[in-house]
């Protein structure tokens, strides 16, 4: 909380002034327009100019980034930070719930991810159900409230999940079905996972039709009773109509192919396959469907369905024409997605630009926000991360992060504020001790926690 107040204060002060900012003498990794040595001009939260020579407007704040590297703010296509709850696991289809309702702007993971150069994240529901809850794209505007975190203009999403996680609840004892005293929740197999998704879209189609029928009658002036709103099916109708993006947790090649075919049958698109650790086995089919793939750099062997995972996955899918991003699914991994990107140069030989694309422009495209973020181009949001060394070096660290042209992370300020925070913490703790002493009933020790 203390941190929130301090960093929030910093951002607010800058917002009030908003002079143009010029970042000078930097190596600028635009990702989409090559690499150059020069400057970036930020005005009104947008990138106003990029080039070797950029005129400094009067009143502009100049940041000398000599020897430093500027890249687009990192985008994490799969995160669970800033949410008070993740899984509504009691039902097989939980599309009626959504992350937006439980966003928590005080989660310290937001600040920690910022300090790793991340500016945008897709906050997903968990993977407990074949069709999970609604997802929200946020910008890591640390210090702002939940509403102001939301990436306005980004399409909303929905989580699907295949494989071990959604079928686990069908077998809660870890034994033969029915062996325990806890009733299993359908599905318990990959066959059942397919069925749950088909049944849901079967219902959604009928629900969609009932509204179409009503709208037609109403348009003709005929008497009509509107159908009862169904909050579970509404998001699925939005999927059918291309208004909501499907982000599907998956591992094995068979289940990936299954989902693509179900989507084909019902006439909708899978926007991203998440994790998709065996995506390299069906890259051709993924590319043909037009689904993006958002994977880990090198996670493997933590469960059965991750045993054929390979660190070459991102590179191999890229070479086969799939739009690939690297994600974190972890508060910790989220803080070094640039390091994760560097591994794709080792495993599969991606170029520097291809590697950086995996955590910038590619996830932006997957989330359909690439007109706003993901590269350093004039007109885009001024979401930038400044590193002290090349961000694909494991020796690099983040110095500054801008979102909408505002400074949300500054390592120098963070370091400078530490002693103050320590002192403040000590004061608060001393005060708490004092009060505990005062309030403790006579003759009793410290109250139990």
């Amino acid at each position, binding site marked *: 909380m203390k941190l929130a107040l301090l960093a929030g204060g910093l951002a607010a002060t800058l917002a009030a002034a908003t002079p143009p900012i010029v970042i000078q003498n930097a190596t600028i990794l635009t990702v989409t327009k090559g690499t150059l040595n020069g400057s970036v001009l930020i005005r009104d939260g947008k990138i106003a100019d990029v080039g070797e020579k950029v005129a400094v407007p009067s009143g502009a704040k100049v940041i000398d980034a000599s020897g430093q590297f500027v890249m687009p703010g990192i985008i994490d296509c799969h995160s669970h930070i800033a949410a008070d709850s993740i899984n509504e696991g009691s039902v097989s289809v939980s599309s009626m719930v959504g992350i937006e309702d439980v966003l928590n702007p005080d989660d310290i993971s937001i600040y*920690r991810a910022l*300090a790793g150069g991340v500016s945008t994240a897709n906050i997903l529901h968990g993977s407990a159900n074949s069709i999970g809850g609604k997802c929200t794209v946020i910008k890591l505007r640390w210090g702002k409230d939940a509403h102001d975190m939301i990436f306005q203009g980004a399409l909303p999403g929905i989580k699907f999940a295949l494989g071990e996680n959604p079928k686990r609840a069908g077998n809660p004892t870890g034994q033969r079905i029915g062996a325990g005293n806890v009733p299993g929740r359908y599905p318990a197999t990959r066959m059942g996972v397919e069925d749950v998704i088909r049944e849901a879209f079967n219902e959604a189609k009928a629900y969609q039709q009932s509204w179409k029928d009503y709208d037609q009658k109403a348009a003709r002036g005929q008497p009509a009773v509107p159908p009862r709103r169904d909050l579970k099916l509404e998001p699925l109708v939005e999927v059918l109509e291309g208004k909501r993006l499907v982000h599907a947790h998956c591992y094995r090649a068979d289940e990936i192919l299954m989902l693509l075919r179900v989507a084909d049958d019902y006439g909708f698109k899978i926007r991203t396959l998440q994790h998709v650790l065996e995506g*390299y086995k069906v890259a*051709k089919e993924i590319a043909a469907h037009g689904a993006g793939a958002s994977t880990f750099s*090198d996670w493997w*062997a*933590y469960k059965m369905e991750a045993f054929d995972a390979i660190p070459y996955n991102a590179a191999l899918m890229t070479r086969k024409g799939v739009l690939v991003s690297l994600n974190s699914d972890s508060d910790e991994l989220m803080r070094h997605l640039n390091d994760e990107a560097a591994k794709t140069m*080792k495993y599969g030989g991606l170029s520097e630009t291809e590697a950086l694309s995996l955590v910038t422009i590619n996830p932006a495209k997957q989330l359909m926000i690439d007109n706003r973020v993901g590269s350093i181009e004039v007109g885009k949001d001024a979401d930038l991360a400044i590193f002290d060394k090349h961000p694909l070096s*494991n020796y690099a660290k983040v110095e500054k992060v801008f979102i909408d042209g505002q400074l949300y992370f500054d390592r120098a300020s963070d370091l400078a504020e530490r002693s103050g925070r320590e002192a403040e913490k000590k004061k608060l703790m001393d005060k708490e001790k004092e009060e505990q002493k005062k309030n403790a009933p006579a003759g009793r020790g410290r109250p139990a926690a």
Partner: protein
Amino acid sequence: MKSLLVALLLTIPLAASDDDSFLIRGATIHPVASAEIQNGSVLVRDGKIVGVGRNLAAPKGTRIVEGKGLHVYPGMIDSATEMGLSEISSIRESVDVGEIGKFDPQLRAEVAINPASEHIPVTRANGITTVIAMPMSAGGGGGFGRGGGGSIITGQAALVHLDGWTWEEMEIKKSAGMGMRFPIIPPPPGRFFGANFPGAKTFTESKKDYETELRELKEFFENARRYQKAKAAKEKGFQTDLKYEAMLPVLEGAEPLIVVASRERAIRDAVQFADQQKVHVIIADPRELGKMGAELKSRNIPAILGPTLALPLHEDDPYDAAYTLPDQFYKAGVKFAFGSFNNEFARNLPYQAATAAAFGLPVDEAMKAVTLNAAQIWGVADRLGSIEEGKSADLMVTDGDPLEARTQVKQLYIKGKTVDLDNRHKRLYEKYLGRP
């Protein structure tokens, strides 16, 4: 693709001979124990390093490995893994990491190491030639008992080479240390769980558990001492007890206790315990140093640091608390090496070191923490950890700085033998790269 071809070209002539004598020349040699040698050579005979320097003359007929543009480092050592003890961490049948029972010093990790584990070739492909395989707290799935609970003495950690047809062939030290988890009062459950989380205990209950465990631990050591005395005195009716027998090297100071202690309080407790019991300890997986730097240094207690790429221990810690921890140990003068405390991420050991370097640790010290320091801590610096005459030819040949992710390991030698860099991941890659 290009780099793959180069790698093949480089390895084919070597693979043709399984000879463990050769000369690498024209490479940049990084001995770790001394300054780097440009355009240098390493001469290996019968699996041992017999020469390091410039313009080394090799006996006639010695196989020559051209090292132009390449770098030679000692093979890296991962000082904490579950290597060979766990294949797929969520599948109980494939996990042999933690046994049932609070005091299990008689258990030997070595005999449960599966030499055909897929993790071994995957790990060594990134330049790691030696690991500690360590029994962890009970419950199977690893995790080193960070949250408390389970075993207190977990068994004997083995130091092994990542090459060999059997665990006997892999063995460097059958018992490099005795695994132990120091009892703690576990921190309150995280924000997702709260007090209603099944199994959540009140502070009073946890404190009682902690006190019980401390008492049991003391009693176990007292009993082991009585056993030691009875054995030395050849007391009448003396009977061998496998648990206490296994404790003798620890009591005699011949074998260190590898004590998992994350928080400052646990570290302090462990140090105090070592003082009282007069045993050698190695602190494993500390997540903070606090005021313990001078205490550790004055007693020559080393540490095995867990992943640098980790979250801060406390919510209000600086965001970079885990990144700067290795430098805090360095500045305090405490000897340390890195461990991945894991299997599937063991190959990322060098990047744990690199992040520490990004946040203050000198790069040379980061390198030592995955090579020479580890060898010293495990008592094998006469054989491993640097490129010096007389040491085992455990060599990693790279095209750059091994602490950088983009660097490729081009060749690997263990005891002078060329190690196959192929593994499950490369095979799957090549297979599906070729899918029409």
